[in-house]
């Protein structure tokens, strides 16, 4: 099964990104949380999957400058700390959602 795709991606406030998905779900993301979960090879060890970002090392002032689609399957963030190598797939963004509405689905996915 293919994962749902974003229908609308918008800035909710200065530190929050919102995505409306084509299955109707509304997701919210604190931008700092997104930066901390960057999936690129600098931030996650490619072989072990271990997080390489030190906890607490991302400042509260972190903001995206620009956000772009990558092909039809992912989104790229250009951060104000100069980092831009993470491609956030739609699948990953579903997992990173911080809205309460998504909790049951994520618990189900983790239990599997």
């Amino acid at each position, binding site marked *: 099964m293919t994962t749902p795709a974003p229908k609308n991606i918008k800035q909710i406030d200065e530190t929050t990104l919102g995505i409306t998905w084509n299955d109707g779900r509304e997701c919210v993301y604190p931008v700092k949380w997104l930066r901390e979960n960057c999936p690129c090879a600098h931030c996650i060890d490619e072989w072990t999957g271990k997080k390489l970002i030190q906890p607490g090392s991302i400042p509260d002032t972190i903001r995206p*400058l620009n956000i772009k*689609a990558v*092909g039809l399957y992912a989104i790229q963030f250009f951060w104000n700390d100069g980092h831009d190598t993470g491609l956030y797939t739609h699948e990953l963004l579903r997992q990173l959602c911080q809205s309460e509405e998504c909790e049951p689905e994520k618990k189900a996915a983790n239990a599997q």
Partner: protein
Amino acid sequence: MSDPQLQEKVIEALKTVQDPDLHKNIVSLGFVKNMELDGGKVKFDVELTTPACPVKEQLKSECETKVGAIEGVESVEVNMTAVVRPTQHSQPILTGVKNIIAVASGKGGVGKSTVSTNLAIALSLTGAKVGLMDADIYGPSIPQMMGIPITSPKVAEENKFYPHEKYGLKVVSAAFLTKQGQPLMLRGPMLGGIIQQFLQNVEWGELDYLVIDLPPGTGDVQLTLTQKAPISGAVVVTTPQEVSLIDADKGVKMFQQVKVPLLGIVENMSYFVCDGCDKKHTIFKEGGGQSLADDFKIPLLGKVPIVPGVVEGGDSGVPIVMGDAESPASKAYKELAGQVAAQLSINQTKDDKIDAGFELAWKS
């Protein structure tokens, strides 16, 4: 009967003519154009979404029969035309290209380049404007198959270059960037650079279809293309036997992961037609392509037989659809072109498409 009344009846009759792929009648699809009535003489255009439409003749005769049956109609003249609709995208590259078709396989040697070449020519024989990009950087074989001598591309303005042209197709290949017979020895990141050039620096002009012949596998070139090019749909080529199917399965899953719409499967080397008895011999087993298509619930777009003419055509630079129109392989390729074009038209009518050109500047 006055003309407006008759025209209304004609339109009512045409509303009962369904496009079997798009599942709507040709009036609500907006296909009926330029209707003229002169007494009992009725004349109109039916503008399809592709000149390669596989049901063109069927639609034409259905229109003629249904309109001809209306009281007061003396003669019907149906003119079939086509304007290829673009797959919507807002990326700033390949802006003159309406549809981009990626031809892929998991495994090498299944005949991707042969399929790409003949598919591209079959599409262009229907009247469409077609380009062919040889994205197999390490093993470019399109120039040989198209019979194009290795010469440097003609330089255009602003760092751009023109594609080579043959049989009405526009062609680019990495082979044109090196001396004849010299290998291109490059590491992965350079591959992406060449593909970027093919996407950004080629003067393609206006194209209805750009066919991209991918290298085998699921590597750098595939990733660069899926990230940078607004691919309208992918075709996965396989041969019927199990070893090929395992890799084709991965090819399909790759496109699913990067959300490139799958147009369907092509089974190449499907069967051998013996010239003495016309019997179909299934050398590499039977039904492999169909079972792969069934697994993913995507169409089996075509089955192309093994005939010596296909190989001769590839080696001599006269692809079989050009050289021998009556060959069973040529017929299979023409049907394939129709199916590919039809699937693209079907995909365009879906409304849950993803915007590949999305961009958001953050306000603070």
